[in-house]
C-alpha cells in the first residue's frame, strides 16, 4: 500500500491588505465605518505617543521598568478592535495600547508600572484580566474564561495575547490543545515581534510560521501582516465572528516588529543591527494607515496635540497619587485576614509608628516572666 497524503491538506494562509508602500487590495478591504477608522487611528497614535512618553518617564525615574509596544500598534489594536466591551481581553505584558483602548485609564497603567498593585485592578464592569508576566501562563486562563462563558451560555468571546517566545512554552501548547478539544470561543493573537529579548525567531522555532502550530491542535491558523491594521482587523473580525458563532478557536500570527527595547532595562544594540531596525521602521504601521486615511479624506488635524494633552493630563493625575500605604500590603491576600497576617500587619504598623528615626516604641506593661518577682521601679 503506497503512502498517500491525508485529506484535507493542511495549509496556512498569509493575509496582507495594505502594504508598506500604501498599496491597497480593495477586494479585501474591510468595511469599517469612517468614524471607527478614525477611532482606530487615534488609538494607535495614542499608543505610540504614550509609549514614547513612558520611556522618557522611566529614564527620568518617574515610573519603573515596562515593556514598550512601539511598532506593534496595528497588531494589538487591529485585533482588540474586533472585540465588544462584553468580550474578554487577556493580555500578556506588552499590550499597553490595547489596554488603553479597552478602557484602562492611563494613570492606572502608570501606577502599575510604578509598582502600585492598585494599577492592576480592573474596573468592576471591565472584562479584562490584568497584566500577566510569566510568559504564556495567561493562555490557559483565557481558555478557562471561554469555557466558563460557554458553560453559562453567555455571548462572549475571549481574546488572548502573547508573543513569539510564548509559543515555545508548554502553557501555549496546552492552552491551544484544551481550546481545541473544548471548542471554546477564543482567539489567540500572537504578536510575533521577531525577538524574545535577545533570541531571534529562528532560534525560537524551526517552524516556518507560528500560525501553523494551530494545525497540530485542529484549529485554523492564519498569518497576517501585523503592521497592516486593516489585515489584522479583518483576520480578527473573522476569528471573533467564528468564535461567536460557536465554530471554535483561531490562532492569528501577527508578523510585526518590536522597534524599541524588550523592556526599559534592555539594550537591543547588543543583539540586533541598526539596519534591521531601519528596515522595519520603513514598514511602520502608523505611516501607512495615516496615508490610507488621507486618501479617504478621513485625516483629522490636531489629533497629535489632542492625544498629547490627554497623556499629559493622565500623567498629572498619576503623579498626584500619594505614596503607597505600606499597610495595604496585607489587603486582598485572602478574603479575610487570617490571624497570623493580622499579627504581621500589627508588627509592621508598630514599626512604622516608630517613624523615620526608628524611635523605640513606648514599652507596654508586661506581666512578669515565670520565676520573676514583681518589683516596683524607682520613681525618678
Amino acid at each position, binding site marked *: 500500500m503506497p503512502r498517500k497524503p491525508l485529506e484535507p491538506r493542511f495549509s496556512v494562509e498569509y493575509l496582507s491588505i495594505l502594504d508598506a508602500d500604501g498599496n491597497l487590495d480593495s477586494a479585501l478591504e474591510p468595511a469599517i465605518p469612517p468614524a471607527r477608522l478614525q477611532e482606530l487611528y487615534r488609538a494607535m497614535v495614542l499608543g505610540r505617543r504614550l509609549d514614547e512618553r513612558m520611556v522618557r518617564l522611566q529614564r527620568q525615574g518617574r515610573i519603573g521598568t515596562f515593556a514598550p509596544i512601539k511598532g506593534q500598534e496595528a497588531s494589538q489594536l487591529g485585533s482588540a478592535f474586533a472585540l465588544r466591551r462584553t468580550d474578554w481581553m487577556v493580555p500578556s505584558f506588552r499590550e499597553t495600547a490595547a489596554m488603553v483602548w479597552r478602557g484602562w485609564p492611563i494613570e492606572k497603567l502608570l501606577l502599575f508600572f510604578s509598582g502600585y*498593585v*492598585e494599577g*492592576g*485592578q*480592573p*474596573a*468592576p464592569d471591565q472584562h479584562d*484580566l*490584568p497584566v*500577566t508576566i*510569566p510568559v504564556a*501562563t495567561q*493562555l*490557559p*486562563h*483565557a*481558555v*478557562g*474564561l*471561554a*469555557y*466558563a*462563558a460557554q*458553560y*453559562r451560555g453567555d455571548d462572549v468571546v475571549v481574546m488572548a495575547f502573547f508573543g513569539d517566545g510564548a509559543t515555545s512554552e*508548554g*502553557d501555549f501548547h*496546552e*492552552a491551544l*490543545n*484544551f481550546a481545541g*478539544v473544548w471548542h471554546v470561543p477564543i482567539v489567540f493573537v500572537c504578536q510575533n515581534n521577531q525577538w524574545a529579548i535577545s533570541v531571534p525567531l529562528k532560534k525560537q522555532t524551526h517552524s516556518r510560521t507560528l500560525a501553523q502550530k494551530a494545525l497540530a491542535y485542529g484549529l485554523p491558523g492564519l498569518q497576517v501582516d501585523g503592521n497592516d491594521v486593516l489585515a489584522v482587523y479583518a483576520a480578527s473580525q473573522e476569528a471573533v465572528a467564528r468564535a461567536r458563532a460557536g465554530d471554535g478557536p483561531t490562532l492569528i500570527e501577527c508578523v510585526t516588529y518590536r522597534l524599541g527595547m524588550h523592556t526599559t532595562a534592555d539594550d537591543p544594540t547588543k543583539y540586533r543591527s541598526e539596519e534591521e531596525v531601519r528596515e522595519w521602521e520603513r514598514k511602520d504601521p502608523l505611516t501607512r494607515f495615516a496615508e490610507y486615511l488621507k486618501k479617504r479624506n478621513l485625516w483629522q488635524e490636531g489629533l497629535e496635540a489632542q492625544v498629547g494633552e490627554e497623556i499629559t493630563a493622565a500623567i498629572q493625575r498619576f503623579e498626584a497619587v500619594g505614596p503607597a500605604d505600606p499597610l495595604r500590603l496585607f*489587603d*486582598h*491576600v*485572602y*478574603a479575610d485576614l*487570617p*490571624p*497570623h*497576617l493580622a499579627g504581621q500587619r500589627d508588627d509592621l504598623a508598630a514599626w512604622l509608628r516608630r517613624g523615620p528615626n526608628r524611635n523605640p516604641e513606648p514599652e507596654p506593661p508586661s506581666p512578669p*516572666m*515565670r520565676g520573676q518577682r514583681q518589683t516596683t521601679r524607682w520613681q525618678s
Partner: protein
Amino acid sequence: MAKLNMVKALNLALLQEMERDGDVIIIGEDVGVDGGVFRVTEDLHRTFGSKRVIDSPLAEAAIIGTSVGMALYGLKPVCEVQFSGFAFQCFHQIENHAARYRQRSQGRFHCQMVIRMPYGGGVRALEHHTESEEQFYAHIPGLTVVIPSGPRNARALLVSAIRNPDPVVFFEPKALYHAAKEEVPDESEALPLGRAQVVREGGDLTLIAYGAMVRVARDAAEVLAQEDHAECEVIDLLTISPLDRETVVASVRKTGRVVIIHEAPRSFGPGAEIAASIVEGAFLALEAPIRRVTAWDVSFVGFARERAHVPDAGRVLAAARETLAY
C-alpha cells in the same frame, strides 16, 4: 447516617455541593467516566454530565490554568491532580496565579477553587506516587492547605474548601482512602478551615500530626497511656496553612513537651514552622526540646523501603519517651 470510607465520604461532599451550587464543576484526568483513579468522583458524570465533570486532556498545568480562568469568571472548579507528585507540572499556575489573583487584581477577581491531590505513602506504588509535598504549598501566601484524617472530617472539610472564597489545596491521604469507615451524617456538614482539633486530651505531652500521621500519633498515645501512664494530648491540625497556632500553643503551655509528626521530609518542613510558633508562643512553658518525627531528608524512590522512611508508632513512641524523660 451511613458508614463510609474516605473515598465515599469525599464523593458525597462533591455530590451534595454540586447539587447545591451549579457553579461547582469538576475537572481532571479520568475524573469522568472512570470516576478518578481512586474513584473519588465516581458516578458524578452520570448525574451532572460531561460539561460539569470534565475528563480533561492530560496536562496538569492546563487543568489548573483553565480552572483559574473558570474561577475568574465565577465558576467554582474542583480540580483533581491524579497524584501530588505530578503537581509540580502545575505548580506555577498555583503559585503564580491561583494564589495571587485576589491580590494582583486588588479584590476584583478571586479564585474560588479546590485543588485535590492524593498524597503520602501506603499504596506501594512507583516514584512520584508516594510523596508528601504539603510544605511547598504551605509556604505560599494566599493558599489554604487542608489535610483531613478520616472520612467524616474529609467530607466536612471538602465542603468548606469548596465554599471557601480562596483557593484550597486539599491533600487526601491515600493510606486512609479505604483504611476505615466512619459514621457520616446524610445532612451536609462543614468544618471551619484554619482550625485544628484536639482529638485526645492529656497533660503530659503534646503530639501534633495531620493526615495519615494522626492515626500513628493516636496509636503511640494509646501505648504511652497503657505502658507509661503518660497522658498525651493529640492535635489533628486539619489545616496546615494558615496554621492554628492558638490551639498548638495552648496545648504546649499546658504540657510543656511536644513531638511533631509528619510524612514530609524534615528540613524546612511544616514541623519547622510549628516548632518556631511554639517557641514564639510558649517558650517559657517548654520543659524539653521540641522533637520532630518525620520522613528523612531523602527523595522517595521506592516503596520497598517505605516503612523505614515514613514515621510509624514505634518511632513516635521512642521520641515521646525521650521527650517525657528529658
